């Protein structure tokens, strides 16, 4: 203790003059590489099964039937009216289904968000239940129920409400009914989640400040639920655009949607170039729509949430 007196302050100054800069930098870099290493298997998989095929699709769409580089596959969309019609039908169906889903799904989600948690989870299971059954099975079930001599028409005739059976299937109506059934949960789930996160205090505050139940709903609850509604609408709409099984079965060949066109082109006419072009166009349109929705809804939410 008496012999060697080291100055602790000086020692710190001496050997950590650069204050561990190099070591800390190396640690940070190692951390980044470590995380990247953990991600790499899934990144590789995504690249292999998504990026690569999509790139290939794009590549294929640029060749005509003789293997020559051309835009013939894309020119067809403009020249042939049947393509334009398919395109319009696809959007009509998607808009229709999304609109019906909003009309049915919003009140449903609202009810679920307001009832006690236990009752809500039971109802939620009922909403999700159809997810556990195959789309094909559900579509065939609808065919049975809605056909000319099906359950619905028999009842309506027995009750004397109609004389002639209604054409509920093998047409546009059938496609709407079948697809709405399948799409409803996709709208309800995100909407319910966002409604559940709206604090009851906002509605209480609204009523406390003199707004009746209706005014509180439209001025407080509805604007606050818009982001969730937007999420649900986007998911529903985009899924509708690429739908195949239900319109194919319930449209009775009269309602041709984009995905059905693709199937025809590739398996019937074995024209991979044309099929790929359809795929690329759908992808581009979907991206464009997502961007448009994003822009539109951001503006709308801002207006609803906005200033004076």
């Amino acid at each position, binding site marked *: 203790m008496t012999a060697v007196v080291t100055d602790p302050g000086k020692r710190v100054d001496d050997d950590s003059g650069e204050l561990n800069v190099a070591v800390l930098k190396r640690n940070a870099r190692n951390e980044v590489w470590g995380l990247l290493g953990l991600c790499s298997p899934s990144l590789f998989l995504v690249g292999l099964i998504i990026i690569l095929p999509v790139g290939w699709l794009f590549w294929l769409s640029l060749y005509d039937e003789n293997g020559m580089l051309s835009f013939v596959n894309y020119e067809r969309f403009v020249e042939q009216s049947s393509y334009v019609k398919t395109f319009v039908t696809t959007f009509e169906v998607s808009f229709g289904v999304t609109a019906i889903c909003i009309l049915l799904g919003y009140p449903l989600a609202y009810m679920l968000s307001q009832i006690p948690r236990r009752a809500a989870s039971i109802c939620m299971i009922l909403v999700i239940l159809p997810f556990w059954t195959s789309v094909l099975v559900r579509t065939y079930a609808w065919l049975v129920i809605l056909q000319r001599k099906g359950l619905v028409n028999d009842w309506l005739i027995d009750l004397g409400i109609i004389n002639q059976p209604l054409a509920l299937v093998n047409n546009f109506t059938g496609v709407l009914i079948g697809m709405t059934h399948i799409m409803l949960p996709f709208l309800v789930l995100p909407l319910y989640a966002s409604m559940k996160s709206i*604090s009851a*205090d*906002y509605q*209480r*505050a*609204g*009523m*406390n*400040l*003199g*707004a*009746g*139940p209706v*005014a*509180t709903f439209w*001025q*407080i609850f509805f*604007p*606050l639920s818009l982001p969730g509604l937007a999420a649900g609408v986007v998911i529903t709409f985009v899924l509708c655009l690429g739908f195949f099984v239900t319109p194919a079965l319930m449209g009775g060949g009269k309602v041709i949607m984009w995905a059905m066109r693709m199937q025809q082109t590739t398996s019937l006419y074995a024209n991979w170039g044309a099929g790929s072009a359809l795929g690329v166009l759908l992808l581009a349109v979907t991206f464009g729509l997502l961007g448009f929705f994003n822009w539109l809804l951001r503006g709308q939410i801002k207006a*609803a*949430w*906005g*200033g*004076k």
Partner: protein
Amino acid sequence: MSVVLSAPPISIRKIVKRFGSQDVLKDLDLNVAPGEFLTLLGPSGSGKTTLLMILAGFVRANSGSIKIGPDEVITMPPHKRNIGMVFQNYALFPHMNVFNNIAFPLKQRRVDKATIARQVEQALHQVQLDGYADRRVDQLSGGQRQRVALARAIVFEPRIVLMDEPLSALDKSLREHMQIELRSLHRRLGMTTVYVTHDQREAITMSDRIAVMNNGCIEQLDKPEILYSTPKTQFVAGFIGESNFTPVDCRDGVAWYEGRQIETRSQVPHAGQHWLVSRPEKVRVADGVNGDRGNFFTGSVREIVYQGDSFICYATLRDGQVMALRDYCRSDVLSRLPAAGEPIHLRIDAEDAAIVQAES
């Protein structure tokens, strides 16, 4: 708004509220005087927030009556009660800016635009947020949100204002500042105010009267200074401030401790063992036990905790009970203070000794 509003009294009678099989409020009676600042104080689960929710109309009572002035309101929907409320998390509408939040109650009342603009501006001035009308809610600090919530609750000149732990989300210094501001705002506007908190210091600082709630009942309703100096029950004594509980024997309305009669101003139960309640800062160091009168306690110093401006001395009495003494670190006090392990004599004035019935 600068005129003192004609604030009505609130008369709450026999409120019963059950959630399932649990009685949250049991036949609760409470009268709030016109213009009074009354605080409901109690631990969580005591029913204070439920009572406030029933007052505001968000929760339906099983039975009972609430009269604001002459009018029965318990059957009225919340939007017709005309009661201002400040929520614990403020509940400012995130999709509206400050102006629209404060204008909301006026728009519901179909007030014309020019009047709305003027009244919002006035309300903002009252809470010292002039010029904040265009801010978005998420651009405000906690204290500013608090003020906007306050402005929104008073802008339509409600006769009654309810506050549900409005300061609990603020940090300590801001909270203390807002306590004073809320108090002066109340004095200026004079509305009947019911304030809920679990913070006893806040309640004591702000209230005209405090209702201490426990298990769905009001244990004691008194002015803060009376509540502090003369708690009527063991719960109130334990909940408000720090307390020494010393067991005393009661016979024929007189309390005894180690053969000495306890001098007190409070009512003494007729028989049984009950508690003498004393506050640490009211306990003094005595030089010795003189005569047979006076409240003296003898023990030994267990520990002295230094707290900067003051100290706490824990003394173990002869019966093993601990009595705490708090005083400022002045030289005259410290010089008389025995060291740890040494014997000590303590004295409590009759005015500072309260007897409360032991709870079974």
